[in-house]
């Protein structure tokens, strides 16, 4: 499976520049399509087996064997990894296709697909790896691809620094991953998932909590949760397909995947689960409030992503892994669709991202409008779209864990309906504000609909967004998502699909909340463009998180760095290094005098050396 992506990457790396636009894009897409087909075949093969036997380890070669550490390059195929692989390759394939149109005429066209293919390869390594170390390789691989792709237009200062920001926030999380790995290895002596699970009793107690919290730190970095969430909005500087693929559908869910993968260890530690649940819930809420005040269409979507992943994390913390994965899959469809739709809008308006400068686009971009509509209803949680089922699943489980967190989730659901509708109305309804001239610039031309390579993925994703809920309907008991994934999550707290009264009530509340959010937004934003009282500075500025980091960490470490550079480095370290270097040099120059070039001196050296050793040896026997 990953092989196709790797081959695509290598081919494009070697010949991409020569092949150029648009063939390079097609090659990249075909490579991912190959991965997708391979994933489908494996998936089909796996689903024919009885549910207990759906677990394979395919070992390719021994990667590292040092002392007690034996790491194989091996993949683990089970329902969880296959689910991930399926939707990663599927969504990637569509987004590759879309990019062929979106990146047209870009200077570094082929380079874009090089990175994109490498990203998919890394992502597949991440989800298929059978041990923590190999997962970490994929983890770092997607991290670095994300860095390259965010700063793809590196001539822009903001893009370059956004890339750096993404990278640094992720590195902070990676430290957690590494420490967790060291801890697991020191206790269990292996990094293989199945062996770790088999010996998980060793970890019971404080160790499990420590391991899971460290891994959760890694997850907060990759999946943009509090406290490491603020890189994601900045990452929107990348090309829109990148935002769709990496920063909505796939990479940012890696943290959730990791936590689900380690569910057997997580089950040992209720404390860590509480932390995870609370952080997830709070993130979901905070990000939703911020999303309701942003002007940039992509930033709204970015905070919405953070909020939705917050739901997933909340689900994981509540032990509802299946619900988390279910939401992840549905989210990949509708959020990918939202981003691609936004990309289509941006493309149509020639790189305009400001919501206040859009309006009435439904007339001009009918395809985009129709598909966006589906995505909007989905994410807002309107039945019977997929968002309703998956979010409902999460909230039902959260209610079982803690009604307080459930309440927070419901408030967030209202907010979700609200900010998505605000975006939708501002962009597609109202007046043709893009006709107004920009202060100091000209008005836009009439928007144009995107080419078919961009529309096709929109339509496909719209179909899935609408219908994905059918994977896991509450009244279906066989061949559904839950029983498919159940073997992986032996310790899941997942509620049974019994249609109890409580569940029906909860579901009704969800649906009502979605309509409340939409209704409020309709009332407020249908015709108005500016409502400063609802767009508080506090929200626009992301609760001043960035300023907080800047003051508490940024500035002091800058002064520290300046101090280090000016005093410590220049005086102490350079002094020591230069001192050592000149010492070595001086010694060398002196020693070189012995190297006279005369054979007689060399022979003398040998004779002295021999004499010295003989004297040494014999002296030992005499004393």
């Amino acid at each position, binding site marked *: 499976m990953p092989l196709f992506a790797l081959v695509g990457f290598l081919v494009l790396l070697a010949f991409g520049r020569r092949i150029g636009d648009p063939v390079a894009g097609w090659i990249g897409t075909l490579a991912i399509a190959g991965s997708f087909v391979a994933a489908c075949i494996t998936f089909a093969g796996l689903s024919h087996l009885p549910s207990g036997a759906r677990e394979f380890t395919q070992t390719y*070669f*021994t*990667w590292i*064997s040092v002392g007690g550490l034996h790491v194989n390059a091996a993949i683990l195929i089970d329902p969880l990894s296959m689910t991930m692989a399926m939707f990663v390759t599927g969504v990637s394939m569509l987004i590759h296709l879309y990019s062929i149109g979106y990146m047209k005429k870009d200077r570094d066209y082929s380079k874009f697909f090089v990175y994109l293919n490498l990203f998919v390869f890394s992502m597949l390594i991440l989800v298929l790896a059978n041990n923590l170390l190999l997962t970490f390789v994929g983890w770092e691989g997607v991290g670095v691809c994300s860095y390259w792709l965010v700063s793809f237009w590196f001539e822009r200062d903001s893009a370059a620094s956004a890339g750096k920001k993404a990278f640094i926030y992720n590195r902070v999380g990676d430290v957690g991953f590494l420490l967790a790995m060291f801890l697991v290895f020191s206790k269990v002596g292996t990094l293989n998932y199945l062996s770790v699970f088999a010996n998980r009793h060793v970890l019971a107690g404080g160790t499990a909590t420590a391991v899971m919290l460290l891994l959760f730190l890694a997850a907060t970095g990759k999946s943009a949760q509090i406290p490491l969430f603020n890189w994601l909005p900045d990452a929107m500087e990348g090309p829109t397909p990148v935002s769709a693929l990496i920063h909505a559908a796939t990479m940012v869910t890696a943290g959730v995947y990791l936590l689900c993968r380690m569910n057997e260890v997580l089950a040992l530690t209720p404390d860590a689960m509480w932390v995870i649940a609370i952080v997830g819930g709070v993130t979901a809420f905070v990000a939703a409030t911020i999303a309701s005040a942003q002007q940039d269409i992509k930033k709204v979507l970015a905070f919405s992503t953070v909020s939705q992943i917050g739901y997933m994390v909340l689900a994981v913390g509540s032990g509802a892994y299946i619900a988390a994965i279910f939401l992840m899959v549905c989210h990949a469809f509708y959020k990918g669709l939202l981003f691609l739709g936004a990309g289509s809008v941006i493309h149509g308006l020639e790189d305009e991202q400001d919501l206040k400068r859009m309006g009435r686009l439904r007339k001009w971009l009918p395809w985009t409008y129709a598909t966006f509509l589906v995505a909007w209803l989905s994410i807002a949680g309107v039945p019977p779209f997929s968002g309703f089922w998956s979010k409902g699943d999460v909230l039902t489980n959260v209610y079982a864990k803690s009604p307080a967190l459930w309440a927070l989730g419901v408030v967030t659901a209202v907010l979700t309906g609200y900010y998505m509708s605000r975006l939708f109305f501002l962009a597609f309804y109202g007046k043709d504000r893009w006709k107004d001239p920009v202060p100091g610039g000209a008005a836009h031309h009439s928007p144009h609909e995107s080419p078919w390579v961009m529309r096709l993925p929109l339509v496909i994703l719209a179909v899935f967004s609408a219908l994905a809920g059918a994977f896991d309907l509450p009244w279906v008991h066989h061949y559904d998502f839950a029983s498919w994934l159940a073997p992986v999550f032996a310790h899941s707290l997942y509620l049974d699909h019994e249609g109890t009264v409580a569940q029906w009530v909860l579901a009704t509340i969800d649906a009502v909340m979605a309509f409340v959010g939409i209704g409020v937004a309709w009332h407020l934003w249908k015709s108005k463009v500016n409502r400063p009282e609802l767009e508080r500075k506090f929200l626009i500025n992301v609760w001043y998180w960035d300023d907080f980091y800047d003051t508490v960490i940024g500035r002091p470490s800058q002064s520290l760095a300046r101090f280090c*550079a000016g005093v410590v480095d220049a005086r102490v370290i350079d002094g020591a290094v*230069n001192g050592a*270097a000149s010492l*070595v*040099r001086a*010694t*060398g*120059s002196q*020693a*070189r005098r*012995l*190297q006279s*070039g005369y*054979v007689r*001196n*060399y*022979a003398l*050296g*040998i004779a*002295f*050396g*021999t004499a010295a*050793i*003989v004297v*040494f*040896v*014999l002296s*030992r*026997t005499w004393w």
Partner: protein
Amino acid sequence: MRVALLIASASLHGGIAMPHIAYLAILPEIVMLGGAILLLAVASLVRSALNVTVITVSTLVISLASLAAALWQFFDVQSHGAYTTLDHAVVLDGFSVLVTVLVASAMALTALVGDGYQRREGLAGPEFNVLAMVSATGAMLMGEANDLVIVFLGLEILSIALYVLAAFNRRRAESGEAALKYFLLGGFSSAIFVYGIALTYGATGTTNLTQIADFLAKNVVVSDGLLLAGLTLLLVGFAFKVAAVPFHMWTPDVYQGSPTPITGFMSAVAKAAGFAALIRVFVSSFGVLRVDWQPIIYALAVVTLLVGAVLALIQTDIKRMLAYSSINHAGFVLLGLEAAGALGKVGARGVSSALYYLFAYTFMAIGSFAIVSVLGGRGDAAHEISNYKGLGKRQPFLALAFAVLLLSQAGAPFTTGFWAKLQVVAAAVDANSVPLAVIAMVSAAVAAFFYLRVVLLMYSPKKFVSDQEGDRLENLDASGDAVASTSAREPLWSGSGRQTALVNELNATLLLESSPETIEVPDEREGDVVNVPVLAVVAIGICIAVTVGFGVFPAPLADFAHKASLLFMP
């Protein structure tokens, strides 16, 4: 000894009693030496001079046949275990097989590199390859000798051919000088070595390694002065061959003067053979006396590591630099040998780490010298390090290959050099020689500096560096003394941007590092783009493939080295 006695007794009693010979044990040697003699005979019998291609191809065939024989031996040893033959004078075990494989591969690679060299220098005739093959035969013999006399025989076969090869380029005076120095000092050290054999024989009554070990195991030598002196002299003989300090002084001169492909061959094969015999003799025969020889090896390792690294820093000639680096590498192998003195598993780990190091070093060294040889240009003379400036622009592939090999020598991860250093250092730590391991790491850090200096030089923008250098030279000319050159540096340090200042500083360090010569000899000329022979590319490619391949997947090679140390028959 025994053979001589046998012949003497046979002449008394009439008829010669031949010892039983298992021909497989000496098959690689037979193929190598027989092939060499056959090639020489054919070359002298045919009327017209043999063309270089024919000679190279036949050398390759012979080397690969010898390699195949060695692999056959490997499977034989795997299934039947180790054994001795030729009246216990020769032993076939995993250890000897590894050395044979290594030498045969080195020979094949040298033939590939030598082809282009001979064409460029206009050296016709088969002698170059024939002598190298004879030398390789000697090296193989040293690897499987189980008798001090056979060790000496192998040593001399190896060395005498190398003396001639060092002088091979008759048009270069340095070549002759190198050969003469090597010959005189080599003769001196051989004499010491033979004296060592004599003293050992006097003390134990035998020259057979197994019997020496038996003798020492069964008898407690009360007055062991004779034995220890013999041991010391043997050690000196080996230390000379592997270029351990203070018996290293010939190395830079000889490496610099010899034809470059031969330098590569010499550094790989002579070192491997010398260490192989050294390890076998000391670990298997003198294992009982480890308390006596371990401190000596310890001390030799320390000075070898440090002197090699420090003196390499100040070289301006790439071949001299690599010569000192090879001394530094010898120090690392000594680290493994020191650990090999320990008992049981730890000792076995020491042996396998030393073997691994030798294997890794062989390919790094031959590859590096192959590149140096190609870049040497006609006359094999352009070896100033400053010539490598801007190589990354002129010949990107060659520069990349050299960078990889140098990084491997420095011990960068994902190369065999890294695993090799890791293994010997780990072995030393296991053997409780922590201070030695620390010294090794320090020397590796120093060594990294001079390897990286070359890499940096290859990739520094040519114009920029030469501008800086030009400025300094102008200043130097204007004021005429070195003080001005230091004051001219001031503006660089307080340069406009921090970044530029840093780069300047680096360059300044670089240029100053390479001793006053670099400043006195301005090398402004654009280096010519040299023509890279196809066979040399193949050789370099193989070296890189081995270095990086086994660097990324270290398991098979480590396994091989491990097996070689397990099958090692004391």
